[in-house]
């Protein structure tokens, strides 16, 4: 690096005219390319968020009608009828219901009457029976009885069946529409909030189908999942983070956990089917098995989350506890774990929310059974919210389209609630060190 050599070089330093037209137009092009990239990015985001907006709004659009249900309110006087009080279950409830309906539109021909009865849910007799069993005083007086309209007429009431469609292409005849209008003008038909959606279990008839079974099935499954994965996950995380020696085995466990977190959920379903149902002979479709499978799925995530939050507690706290003579266990369980708990809880709730939305493994262990009563415990056959959605989405009746969307909205509502709690916990209790 002699001075002379570099002086020679310096003679040739080109003077660049940055203001030349060439340079100016080049810079223009470069800035245009920059803006293009920015625009592509924005378009990508708009695409993704637009999709989300369409998804949510189409669900609300199709699902909102399922939150109300058309019903007919009719007066029934049971004091005159010959109902045997000792044999309530065997009384001719069907006759009673039909009689009461007949009274609303008297003088129909036999075939018209059959068409007329089609307008109401076919399970009206059971609804009346259950109402009377629940409140026997109805036998002594006139009382109002609410009977849901059958699905096609519910659609008609909600304006989802167009009267302009040719008669042959719709499930309601012109005559039935006429009868329907008569009922409406008498003020019998109303459309209250559809509590049945939350308090009924599944049914073949859309107007009666509800989510009670699915919600309680999901609740029991998540309970099992939480009871198993929470303590086990924390215990494993503490061991790996605080106690485990650094060796081949713990490395293997580490790689293994990261891997398990990315194994497709359907594989866990296969595991559950082969091991829990096949080898252990546990009951099919039961929330206990669903919860077990879900807990195996959430365990890896939970371990990872817990380890991160244990790591974030400064070691000075551990040293302080050890310094006053606490054992290692005491330092961890009295000091570190409580400090890490808010973050662990946040992670646990988010994992549970994820488990709540999981359906593939539940399908494989049979939690898509058609069951018309909510389960009373973890050993009884049941569905879960996402599998119920799957089943309803497969049903051909039009009323189930709206109900599927409504069920999805309910599921999303639970997810929003759980994530909201998690975010609240994080903001309220999380410490920054």
């Amino acid at each position, binding site marked *: 690096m002699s001075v002379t050599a570099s002086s020679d070089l310096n003679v040739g330093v080109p003077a660049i005219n*940055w203001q030349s037209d060439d340079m100016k137009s080049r810079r223009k092009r470069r800035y245009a390319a920059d803006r293009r990239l920015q625009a592509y990015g924005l378009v990508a985001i708009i695409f993704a968020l637009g999709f989300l907006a369409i998804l949510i709004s189409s669900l609300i659009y199709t699902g909102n009608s399922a939150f109300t249900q058309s019903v007919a309110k009719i007066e029934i006087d049971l004091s005159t009828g010959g109902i045997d009080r000792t044999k309530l279950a065997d009384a001719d409830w069907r006759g009673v219901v039909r009689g009461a309906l007949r009274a609303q539109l008297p003088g129909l021909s036999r075939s018209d009457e059959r068409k007329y009865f089609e307008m109401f849910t076919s399970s009206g007799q059971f609804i009346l029976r259950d109402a009377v069993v629940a409140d026997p005083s109805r036998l002594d007086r006139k009382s109002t009885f609410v009977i849901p309209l059958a699905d096609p007429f519910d659609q008609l009431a909600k304006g989802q069946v167009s009267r302009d469609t040719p008669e042959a292409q719709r499930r309601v005849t012109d005559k039935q529409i006429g009868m329907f209008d008569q009922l409406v003008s008498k003020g019998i038909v109303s459309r209250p909030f559809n509590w049945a959606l939350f308090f009924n279990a599944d049914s073949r008839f859309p107007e009666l189908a509800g989510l009670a079974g699915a919600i309680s099935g999901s609740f029991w499954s998540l309970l099992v999942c939480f009871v198993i994965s929470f303590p086990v996950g924390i215990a494993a995380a503490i061991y790996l983070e605080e106690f485990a020696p650094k060796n081949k085995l713990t490395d293997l466990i580490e790689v293994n956990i990261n891997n398990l977190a990315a194994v497709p959920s359907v594989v866990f379903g296969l595991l559950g089917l082969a091991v829990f149902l096949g080898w252990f002979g546990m009951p099919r479709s039961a929330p206990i098995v669903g919860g077990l499978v879900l807990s195996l799925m959430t365990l890896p995530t939970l371990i990872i989350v817990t380890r991160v939050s244990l790591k974030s507690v400064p070691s000075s706290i551990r040293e302080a506890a050890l310094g006053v003579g606490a054992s290692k266990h005491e330092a961890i369980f009295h000091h570190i774990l409580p400090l890490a708990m808010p973050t662990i809880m946040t992670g646990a709730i988010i994992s549970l929310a994820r488990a709540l939305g999981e359906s593939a493994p539940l399908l494989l262990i049979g939690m898509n059974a058609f069951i018309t009563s909510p389960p009373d415990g973890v050993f009884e056959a049941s569905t879960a919210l996402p599998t119920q959605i799957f089943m309803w989405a497969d049903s051909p009746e039009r009323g189930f389209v709206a109900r599927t969307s409504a069920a999805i909205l309910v599921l999303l509502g639970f997810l929003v609630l759980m994530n909201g709690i998690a975010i609240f916990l994080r903001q309220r209790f999380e410490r920054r060190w």
Partner: protein
Amino acid sequence: MNMMSEAAVEKALDKSMSDAGLKMIGKDVSVYYGEKRALFDVNLNVRKNTVTALIGPSGCGKSTFLRTLNRMNDTIDGCRVTGKITLDNADIYDPSVDVVELRARVGMVFQKPNPFPKSIYENIAYGPRIHGLAKTKSDMDRIVESSLQRAGLWNEAKDRLQEPGTGLSGGQQQRLCIARAVAVSPEVILMDEPCSALDPIATAKVEELIHELRTNFTIVIVTHSMQQAARVSQRTAMFHLGNLVEENDTDKMFTNPDDQRTQDYIMGRFG
């Protein structure tokens, strides 16, 4: 009217200063990071073909000032610059100024060598390529070669131009970064503590290089080593707590400074 005349006076003043060989002029430069003020009304001129050293204790604002000279502060969120800085009498904070052009004319070398994860050749060709300085492949080859030669790296790198720049030693990486800056033919090169991550031998090489580059470039260097400032620079500016304490010829600064604080700092009383 009054304002007009004031502007006219200022312009005349600027002109006279540039005639005296001033490449860049900083007038009442203040820098804010959000609410926090990091520089207080600094007035500092940079002379053409001169090495100007900025010294002072850490956190004194010398790097902040350096980064205002090619508007690198723009890349930091919440950073705001007031006052006026000119390059060849044109205000570089004027809205019509093109930052891309400005940074091509005022290059920069950083504290830690930061070669791109590309080959040595591509590291140097990157600048000329984006600015369109080479029409042909052989033009580019020439630029790469002359830049490496100017940075004193040609002999060490000519046989491994296609190897990754990150494979070089620390000192070589820093000279690669200098070659990368030189390749765009800037008028001013800013160096932010370029030797702080290097060993003494590599440092000596870079210092020698700075000395040679002076013939063609105007150089502003931030250093925490007073010996280095004394070795490489002709002018020295001393910063303290965001203020410019003193600016002087380097020889004078290190023998007979005007300001007591400069003396204290040079004697090692603080910092």
